[in-house]
């Protein structure tokens, strides 16, 4: 039986005082009762806009400009007010991307359920509490969460509560908009499994909206691929995996690989055993995403030093009185030789970012020593720290907040060139343009004049990398440098980082939860769990033949399009 019939649906954004933009163009598809469908696309593809429209949540400035959405025979595209509200029980429901923020911070979880029951009166008064208990147990939470406030629950628990709330409407269609994106890797997987299980048991129709083709192929039976507002491919997951028809789908698929394989290859990057190389063939996209050019210039003769951590520990005072102190890092030792790349992997809270703070001198260790060559980083004061900042540079996770939106690219790059490089005037400018050339942002003159909002995420991250390179550092610490980027842009940035290390001999500390990218750009790896090192060795060796259970768990969390077919 057809539950949802979407015909030629188009949605336009009509922002105040700006040109209207068509976000969804002529979407046409049918969903049968009980189907589990994935809707995949990268940022700006229109997938979330479509998801919101299907659940009657399209709001100004978005407007359904043409087409119809027939839900069980009634057109809901142009329904509103009370009629639409009534449809929401036993109709269509939605679980939002940031489930963490989807709950009212000042109401208990129990009251959230009570509000829904009161709004639709579909559960008799005396049964309401029992029904709420039933629902939270379905998402594998204890009944006691009903008396808690959202702030007292973890991100994963809040997302589960949001799912239970949506389920309380007895929906026949449930849209999950990036339900696990904001969660930690291991939690992501657990929540996803609950969703799959629920869908199987309750047999509702589900749409999983996601940017991650890997996750979608793993969990759903049918996949719609969206690109620039158009559904470019619609077919069974297995067929899309084996025989993708559209070039865009092919491109997306080419960016997945198994970090456990002997040879791992992404467009522009290839690792066989522990040999890494950039293949020179640039990844897809216009010239700006090309592999680094600019020729190898030998570094001016500064000596290179190793980063050495010996028995390093960091304990934070208890967050509240009466609680235990927080052990963020516990007895960690490692050495990064000049020009080496070390991966630091682990789930959130494993202490990886604290180690970065210790090496950059932002925090001081409570035990052990952190050294750069002969310098004890933990004991540095002003002038020493200033020198350290020249030698150790960071590339941050979020390229959107790492650049000051009011400053042009040229200004951003000029600061370190002037402050640390001591160059002035024309020389400084030449250095800035050089840097842009190195990170592949050409034509350099044009990019120098741009402001951050005029750049894409991948281009911004290149600027951040150029800024880190500007003072000719010895060590670059990259904290999840690609996790905020679209899958298709990741390979380009990784190839850039890898190329820079080869050309300039910079040491790299690569912090990530993503084992695939760790495999691609590092030769040694350290797996952290709750501040302790649980496994270490050559990256290829550790990932191909993991010994610790935690490493295996992390490996299993990497989305594998292929796994569905196995």
């Amino acid at each position, binding site marked *: 039986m057809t539950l949802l019939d979407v015909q030629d649906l188009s949605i336009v954004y009509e922002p105040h005082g700006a040109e209207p933009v068509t976000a969804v163009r002529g979407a046409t598809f049918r969903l049968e009762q009980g189907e589990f469908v994935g809707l995949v696309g990268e940022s700006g593809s229109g997938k979330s806009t479509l998801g919101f429209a299907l*659940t009657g949540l399209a709001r100004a400035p978005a407007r359904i400009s043409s087409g119809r959405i027939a839900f069980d025979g009634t057109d809901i595209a142009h329904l509103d007010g009370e009629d639409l509200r009534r449809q*929401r029980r036993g109709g269509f429901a939605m679980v939002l991307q940031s489930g963490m923020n989807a*709950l009212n911070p000042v109401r208990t979880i129990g009251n959230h359920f009570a509000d829904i029951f*009161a*709004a639709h009166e579909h559960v008799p008064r005396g049964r309401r509490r029992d029904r709420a208990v039933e629902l939270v147990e379905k998402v594998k939470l204890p009944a006691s969460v009903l008396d808690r406030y959202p702030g007292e629950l973890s991100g994963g628990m809040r997302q589960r509560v949001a799912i239970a*709330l949506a389920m309380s409407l007895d929906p026949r269609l449930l849209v999950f908009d990036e339900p696990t994106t904001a969660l930690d890797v291991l939690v992501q997987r657990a929540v996803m499994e609950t969703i799959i299980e629920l869908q199987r048991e309750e047999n509702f129709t589900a749409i999983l909206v996601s940017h991650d083709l890997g996750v979608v192929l793993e969990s759903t039976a049918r996949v719609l691929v969206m690109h620039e507002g158009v559904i470019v491919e619609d077919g069974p997951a297995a067929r899309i995996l084996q025989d993708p028809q559209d070039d865009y789908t092919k491109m997306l698929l080419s960016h997945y690989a198994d970090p456990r394989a002997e040879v791992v290859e992404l467009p522009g990057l290839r690792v066989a055993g522990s040999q890494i190389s950039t293949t020179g063939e640039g990844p897809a996209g216009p010239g700006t995403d090309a592999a680094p050019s600019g020729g190898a210039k030998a570094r001016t003769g500064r000596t290179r030093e190793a980063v050495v951590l010996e028995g390093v520990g960091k304990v934070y005072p208890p967050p509240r009185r009466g609680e235990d102190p927080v052990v963020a890092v516990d007895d960690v030792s490692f050495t990064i030789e000049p020009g080496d790349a070390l991966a630091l992997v682990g789930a959130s809270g494993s202490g990886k970012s604290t180690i970065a703070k210790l090496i950059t001198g932002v925090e001081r260790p409570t035990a052990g020593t952190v050294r750069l060559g002969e310098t004890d980083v933990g004991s540095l004061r002003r002038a020493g720290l200033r020198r350290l900042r020249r030698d150790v540079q960071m590339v941050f996770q979020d390229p959107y907040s790492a650049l000051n939106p009011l400053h042009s690219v040229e200004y951003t790059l000029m600061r370190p060139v002037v402050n640390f490089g001591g160059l002035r005037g024309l020389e400084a400018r030449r250095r800035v343009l050089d840097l842009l050339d190195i990170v592949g942002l050409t034509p350099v003159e044009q990019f120098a004049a741009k402001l951050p909002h005029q750049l894409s995420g991948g281009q911004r991250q290149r600027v951040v990398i150029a800024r880190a390179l500007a003072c000719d550092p010895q060590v670059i610490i990259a904290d999840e440098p690609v996790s905020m980027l679209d899958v298709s842009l990741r390979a380009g940035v990784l190839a850039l980082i890898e190329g820079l290390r080869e050309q300039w001999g910079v040491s790299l500390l690569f912090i990530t939860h993503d084992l695939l990218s760790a495999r691609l750009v590092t030769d040694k790896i350290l797996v952290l769990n709750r501040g302790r090192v649980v496994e270490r060795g050559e990256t290829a060796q550790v990932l191909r033949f993991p010994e610790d259970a935690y490493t295996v768990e992390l490996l299993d969390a990497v989305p594998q399009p292929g796994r569905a077919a196995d």
Partner: protein
Amino acid sequence: MRYVLRKIGLLLLTLWAAVTLNFFLPRMMPGSPTDAAIAKLAQNGPVSPATRAAIEAQLGVPTGNIWDQYVTYLGNVLTLDFGVSYTFFPQSVSDLVLTALPWTLVMVGVVTIVAFVLGTLLGVLAAWKRGTFLDSLPTLTGTFTSAFPYFWTALLLLFFLGYVLQWFPTSGAYSARATPNLSAAFIADAAYHAVLPAVTILITSLGGWILGMRNTMINTLGDDYVTFAEANGLKPRAVALKYAARNAILPNLTGFGLALGGVVGGSLLVERVFNYPGVGYLLYNAVTNQDFPLMQALFLMITVSVLVANFIVDVLYGYLDPRTRR
């Protein structure tokens, strides 16, 4: 409960600090009230030591060392003994303050609460009906009226409603013939006298509450929990009140606490213009007549009322926002 106890402890501590500062600060100033009085007299010729002794006897010279004085002072504060007023000799300061306080508390206090409640409700409505007439009317009017200076509004009302149209009395808190008591007739008379000063305060403070609430609520309306509540088919009223407004009011409570604390001290201009016998008017008299005991008692009371108002808001906040309770 532990949260409230902790807040009470904090309140007592700050109260003690305020009282102590109130004691030590004037003593750290050079000169003394006697010197000031003698300096005034000295303009008309030499002052004999006998005059000095007489002034000292009248004002009272502290005995014992400063710690003994401090202990005595603390005892006096606890028993509300602030000495005798210079201006209204021989009335005691506490009598003066206690007579003035009810007028201010009732008139200004009630208006402040009404302004907050009314302004917040209008703000909720404006945000919920954003872009419609219900939004633009209160928002524009609010912006306009809140830009009026206090005393100027007071003078305008006084002139047109009191003097030209003679609808309301122009000064005082009750008719000259009436004596204060709790009869219905007297309360009606007092309320009639309170209309002009009350409306003045309402006009100038209402706009701020409307704008503040509207702007925070427009932000919370964009929050995910509001979208999710809507997606779950909650009734629009519940979404607006229990979800959007309920969260938007939290930051405005802090402002309300400050406004409540300012009730005692902040009504000086209005009370002056309307000759309203409240604390503000008393403070005005104390300052112009250099009535030190009266001033000191009033300053202390203003400090205490700010602290107490903040305490009330803190407790309220703990009740309304579970995140602060830990």
